[in-house]
């Protein structure tokens, strides 16, 4: 039902991870300034390269599937685009982000001709390759961002960006670069295409609480979902006049979210379990916890064992050192493993426990009673 993987002998948290196109290689950052590339051989993960160009903790990794390039960004204010040489080693190219604070997140655009970097400098750098000078340059989206950008995601049309930040707002911007791209078709979000045009702005809560942790465009591009630190999950729909739905959940805050069909969202975070939500005509509906771990039956708790434990540790059970989920600490990153946002069948999660878990939605659908992914 689920596969669990560990990388190397380290038990350090995994900051973030990214897969290559064939899903036989993975780039992870073990909560430091390095990015490790692992390749699967049989059932083993072998380390093939160590990308150690950054000086401070790596904050974001993204692997472009078709052009096979990796982009990493870090708290040292730099981003690198990594290309694979003939000898299979990865070589970095520095990107001129022009920021004076840590870079926090990075994403390739769907066409892989540009990428966006969010940062603590209250701006988003949209970067593209300038062939005349043979380097990556960036253009800034500044206004009206007022605080650190924590999350971003690309619209499937390659032209729009959704940006979440710690000023409790989610904004949709145009990220069209006229030097390298044709004028795009208008979308329900608006027809203006100038880089940095604010097309929509959503406040996470009227009560001004909860910075945005993760944002995601729906596969048809008309909806945006985000999760925030006030334990809510939200959806805004451009085809319905930017109507927003907010759901106050009973869980600890989510750190990451993604669409897995046009109407289903997976979110995961401090509760250590991925949770499935459906977006229907009537709003957001809680569907299921995807981690169905049950309390293990202890092989007949003997009276002697119980009294022994009561005597030694003042509690009747000894097996409560682990929590009832596969992940033993907060989940920080969700990636699609199989399929796209419109028909995802497997996704992967990694977190502070250093574990990477691959979840198979088809088998989960069979195993969890009443679970139907629409």
């Amino acid at each position, binding site marked *: 039902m689920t596969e669990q993987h560990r990388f190397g002998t380290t038990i350090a948290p995994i900051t973030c991870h990214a897969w290559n196109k064939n899903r036989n290689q993975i780039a992870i950052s073990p909560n430091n*300034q390095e990015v490790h590339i692992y390749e699967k051989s049989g059932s083993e993960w072998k380390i093939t390269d160590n990308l150690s160009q950054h*000086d*401070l903790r790596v904050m974001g990794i993204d692997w472009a599937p078709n052009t096979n390039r990796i982009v990493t960004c870090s708290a040292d204010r730099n981003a690198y685009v990594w290309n694979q040489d003939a000898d299979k080693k990865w070589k970095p190219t520095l990107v001129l982000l022009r920021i004076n604070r840590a870079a926090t997140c990075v994403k390739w655009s769907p066409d892989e001709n540009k990428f966006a970097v969010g940062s603590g400098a*209250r701006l988003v750098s949209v970067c593209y390759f300038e062939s005349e000078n043979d380097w990556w340059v960036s253009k800034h989206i*500044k*206004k*009206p*961002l*007022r*605080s650190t950008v924590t999350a971003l995601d690309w619209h499937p049309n390659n032209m729009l960006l959704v940006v979440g930040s*710690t*000023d409790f707002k989610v904004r949709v911007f145009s990220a069209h670069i006229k030097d390298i791209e044709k004028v795009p078709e208008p979308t329900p979000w608006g027809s203006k295409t100038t880089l940095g045009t604010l097309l929509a702005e959503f*406040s996470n*809560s009227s*009560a*001004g*609480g*909860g910075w945005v942790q993760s944002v995601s465009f729906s596969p048809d591009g008309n909806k945006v979902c985000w999760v925030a*630190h*006030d*334990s*809510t999950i939200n959806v805004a729909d451009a085809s319905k006049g930017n109507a927003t739905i907010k759901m*106050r*959940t*009973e*869980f*600890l*805050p989510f750190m990451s979210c993604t669409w897995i069909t046009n109407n289903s969202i997976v979110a995961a975070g401090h*509760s250590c379990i991925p949770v499935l939500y459906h977006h229907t005509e009537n709003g957001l509906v809680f569907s299921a916890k995807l981690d169905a771990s049950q309390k293990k039956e202890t092989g007949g708790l003997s009276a002697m064992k119980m009294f022994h434990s009561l005597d030694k540790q003042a509690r009747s059970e000894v097996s409560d050192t682990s929590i009832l989920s596969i992940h033993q600490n907060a989940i920080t990153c969700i990636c699609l493993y199989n399929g796209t946002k419109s028909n995802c069948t497997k996704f992967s999660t990694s977190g502070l426990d250093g574990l990477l878990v691959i979840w198979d939605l088809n088998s989960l659908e069979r195993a969890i009673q009443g679970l139907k992914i629409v």
Partner: protein
Amino acid sequence: MAKNTFSSAFRKIDVDQYCEDNYREDDTDGGPTGPDENEVNSLLQKGKNLDALKLVLTNAPLGSKNQQTKDNALTLTLKVLLSIKPPQIEEAVSQLSPELLDVVMKYVYKGFECPSEGSSGHLLLWHEKIYNQGGVGCIVRVLSDTRRA
């Protein structure tokens, strides 16, 4: 990597003070002026404690900048919370919407902050019932919300 030093004075330098686009809180339009004390008291006298509870919670002046308004609302809300008897608490909580659950949880925590004779024990009962319905998310929203009770 940065060198370890014993000096931490640099942490107190406000490097953002020269930026003109600093984060500012949204201006609030005064917000609600708080619940009507007479109305709440008359509801309490008639024994309609649940109605009084809904009234104080829907009119809670959480976004207000006037400390006096907030203090008055807090006193009034605590009075209502403490007037509801322990067996009625579960019923009262079950009638509240998720939004109001968050509000009442804020007042419960504020009540812990400024206790009176026997209030904390009573509020712990409220806390338990609200937690059972709203889950841990309810507590997180009390912590993360910038508009305090």
